[in-house]
């Protein structure tokens, strides 16, 4: 497993190993929060067989990296990890994983939510359902935009 903070991968995410890397990052860690976004079998009422995730290589890593830096200026974080999967993803598999570590729980919870709200709205990734029509791209969601706006 890689020691990088931000990673985009075609392979399944090993959330146990990623969580361990953050928990054992050293310092005076008292709180670790993890978030796993999982591919649902159901997208707005339709059964799906898989999702397909596309990203803008280079821009995605850079954008997530600068957002992680922003989180570090807002909260006293001791470790952060973001792993985003791309390509074909089946129901039950992890699409995105975020882990944050801090001395206290408030910072760890808030930073994890801040990073997730950003990933949902501003990181250059696009999802479509497999099997449906070519144009089965999933629409952006107003609720996600509102969630992201609360950090402004």
């Amino acid at each position: 497993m890689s020691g990088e903070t931000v990673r985009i991968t075609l392979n399944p995410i090993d959330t146990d190993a990623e969580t361990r890397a953050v928990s054992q990052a050293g310092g005076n860690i008292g709180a670790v929060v993890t978030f796993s976004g999982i591919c649902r079998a159901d997208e707005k009422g339709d059964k799906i067989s898989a999702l397909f995730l596309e990203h803008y290589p280079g821009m995605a890593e850079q954008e997530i990296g600068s957002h992680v830096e922003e989180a570090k200026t807002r909260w006293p974080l001791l470790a952060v990890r973001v792993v985003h999967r791309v390509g074909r993803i089946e129901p039950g598999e992890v699409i995105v994983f975020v882990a944050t570590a801090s001395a206290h729980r408030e910072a760890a919870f808030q930073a994890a939510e801040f990073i997730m709200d950003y990933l949902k709205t501003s990181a250059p990734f696009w999802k479509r359902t497999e099997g449906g029509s070519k144009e089965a791209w999933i629409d952006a969601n107003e609720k996600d935009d509102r969630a992201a706006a609360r950090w402004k």
Partner: protein
Amino acid sequence: MYFAWLRERLDKTEEEVEIPSSVQTVGELMDWLKTRGEEYEYAFDNPKVIRAAIDKTHVRAEAKIAGASEIAFFPPMTGG
């Protein structure tokens, strides 16, 4: 560069184009691309929903394109 349904509607990932000197902003570039054929008209049908990046940084329609080496168009992001 084009992503997601923009890429599919245009049936291309990227292209190099000579942009007329009258086209100075990202918004003007979208208008000009629309004149290049049916598939562009379809792809840029609703320019309000289309996001853009210059050299891998998000920009608005008013952004100047002078000096850009890579301009990307894409739908609203739906990561995570």
